[in-house]
């Protein structure tokens, strides 16, 4: 069980050469071995979504897979959203619309929303709510999260049209 393997995780475009047991979860490896602690652990059984990261363009729960399974894939975490000092439209919208309180679930919601809006910029509102209902937040009552994501979706569509 304790035999370790050498793997490389590519997180936000940077390679992290690490040595982990096969049983180590992806989220533990991202946090403890790669030092990217912005991805949080809320339940370790795939319900809350606090650990959501984007793996090759799909939002996944990093507590439900092993680090060794992510070898060779592109991992995106909350640390990779901003470009320098420039926040991602979703990050700005969460601040502007008070879409966070304690902030613990926020990285998971951001990655879920980023992935959704990148894949389906014109997603319908009902479908958007369905997607967002897959993560849990205990502070906000969700209202401002919805407002923030809708606002960012508009911003991103406008930016996309302009670009």
């Amino acid at each position, binding site marked *: *069980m*304790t035999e370790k393997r050498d793997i490389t995780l590519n997180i936000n475009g940077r390679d992290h050469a690490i040595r982990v*047991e096969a*049983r*180590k979860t992806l989220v*533990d490896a991202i*946090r*403890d071995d790669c030092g*990217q*602690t*912005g*991805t*949080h*652990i*809320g*339940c*370790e*059984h795939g*319900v*809350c979504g*606090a650990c959501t990261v984007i793996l090759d363009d799909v939002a996944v729960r990093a507590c439900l897979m092993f680090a060794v399974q992510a070898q060779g894939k592109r991992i995106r*975490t*909350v*640390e990779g*959203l*901003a470009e320098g000092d420039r*926040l991602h439209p979703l*990050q700005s919208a*969460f*601040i*502007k619309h*008070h879409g*966070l*309180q*304690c*902030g*613990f*679930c*926020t*990285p998971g919601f*951001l990655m879920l929303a980023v992935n959704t809006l990148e894949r389906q910029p014109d997603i319908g509102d009902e479908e958007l*709510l*369905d997607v*967002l*209902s*897959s993560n*849990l*937040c*205990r*502070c*906000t*009552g*969700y*209202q*401002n*999260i*919805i407002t923030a994501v809708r606002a960012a979706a508009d911003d991103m569509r406008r930016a996309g049209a302009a670009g």
Partner: protein
Amino acid sequence: MSHGYPTPPRAEERRVLGHPVPRIEDRPLVTGHGLYAGDVSFPHQLHMRIVRSAHAHARIVAIDTAAARALPGVVAVWTVDDIAELPPIDFRDPSAEALKPYRQPVLARGRVRYVGDPVAAVFAEDPYVAEDAADLVDIEVAPLPVLMGAQELGEFDDGRATEPTIVRHSFGDIEAAFAKAHAVVELDLTIGRHSGVPMETRGAIGRYDAARDVLELHGAAKVPHRNKDTLVRMLGRSPHSLHLFEGHTGGGFGIRGELYPEDVLVLVAALRLGRPVKWIEDRREHLISANHSRHQHHRVRAAVDPQGRLLGMEDEFFHDQGAYVRTHGARVVGRTMSMLTGPYKVGAYRAVGHFRLTNKTPAATYRAPGRYEGTFVRERLMDAIAARLGIDRIELRRRNLIPGAEMPFTVEFDEPGAEELVLDSGDYPALLDKALAHFKWDQVLADVTRRRAAGEAVGTGIGLFVEESGRGPADGAKISVDTDGAVEVVTGGASVGQGFATAMAQICAEQLGVDYSRIRVVHGRTDRIAFGIGAHAARATVMTGGAVNETAIKLRQKALQFASELLQTPAEMLDIVDGVVRRKGGDAGPSIALGDIAKRVAPGAELLHGREPGLSAEAWFHTDHTVFPYGAQLAVVRVDRDTGQATVERLMIAYDVGRAVNPMMLEGQLVGGSIQGVGGALLEEFTYDQNGEPLAVTFADYLMPSLRDAPPVDVLITEDAPSPRNPLGLKGGGEGGINAVGAVIAGAIDDAIGIPGAVTRLPVTPPRLKELLRRGAP
């Protein structure tokens, strides 16, 4: 201090206080740079894993740790024998002697009393190895009878009953009230066992700095200073040699940041093992070991006159405390009964609260402790009285509300030591009117009637409540301006994610005349300030905000005095705008930035003339009063008769907060609290089987509201009754949102299914609602 402060200005007359400005804490949180307990690590740290009881009640026969100790990577395995000298987890406040034998030991001592009770602690090089080793600890037990109901009385240990205390509150002649009653309405009500369940589980990191002889606890929350006091007592260290550090906190809600066995263990282990020790709880552990709450069973009755006026109210209730008495003692029982009459005038009152132990996870405070429970009981009673007498439920409430003209209104209890309530300010009937108008009550009723005629099961509910906040006695703050003009506010407050730093920065900025977003707010650090009230019972804004206000005023005067001397201008003619002292009423004339003043008052500066150097101040806010915000909640609920599913279509809260520091954050608190209330009303429950095995141990069994369960919450904030008990007129906003939600949803479900008084138990899960529909009218 008991006399009133003048009415404070409204936001329109303020620069930043009272305005919905963005939070200063958000940027690190949206970029992944927060510092939650799990993010704290020290070189060479060990990882702790707790071995927990799998039995609800048993005698420990033997604990075999040999196999665990033999596992490579394991450094130590402790049982109670290794920490025999440690006292049990102590109460925060002095508590009745009678409660002491019921405190929780740091590790189980001879007996386990609930599934989840810590029995042993494993320390290993790696968290996975610690968990492997924990599985190898073999606990041999002899099962004991399991007590699962608070209405039954059992034996805690030799000669000690499972009822540590009975709490009583009364006033007036209750017998006479019932003797002359036109009608007596009686109810049997239960509030389910649920809790705060923050998204971040608990965590604690102990570190001993041998170079400085300081023992450090990281991952602290809520009441770091108060917990430090308790730890100093328990560990016998001097206060200067033990410090607590709060980073970011992933939700508090009353349960996080209490002192738990794990906090003590990481500290003792860090000392003895000579390495930092990190413990991060997993979700299953959290659900069976962090504080539960709420669970009470009430038998309540009211004596009313023909108009429905409350002549008397009598309540006997059983509080299911779980296996031990934790840091609050019997506080929740006391708060339940002191606030039970809420916004109403009651002729006579008698409440008896049985504080009972069972073989469940111990309980304590959760957001609006005793009030979510008490409001459910009181407002169910008001609905029942209205139904019995055929009086409209709004009209019945209106007849009983304390009139605005009678404020401040004192509720004095007969029992010696029972704290009187002095409801400081408010116009409850006026808020009710505003709430109904905002909700468009008449239109909603007409709409509901139309939908019902079309066959839908849809109904409305209302609940009125009083909250308490800002309990004293005192809190202090230090503010300093550095030579760059940046401001640091050091408080003894704590942040549980509610926007504490922003609120403090707004108060400071308003008085000092600086940009709030450039203020650094320190909280939860016992090494930076000696005293602190923390973040509990909605104290932070009122108490710490009061202290920051006093301190900022003092610092402003100091800055203006120095500037007056430097600019050769009378201080009365000067103002501070955006961190620059200048003449009032324009840009003309000389000016000086606060940072430059700070440079000019360094030690040895000529300007000082014997005054203390530095542009800084320290001050205190004292109060011997609690302040009472109040509110009304309304809901529309639809019931699916086939599935028993209740859907909250609309929720509204009207809340008078005196003066809001930041309406955006206050609204966030009220909406978030409301949705947590929906959880307790419809979804969340810690259930057990008859052997005491917990059945809600994952998020698949303990159901918290998801986005699809969360109705839109409409918020009406009013500022009609600023508190006369503090200079800013503030009242707390952290707990109001959840207060009446259970009551309101229960009333709306009754209304929807057309069975008055149907709901007597929360949460109203689909099977329970199906059963109510099957049984029909009572």
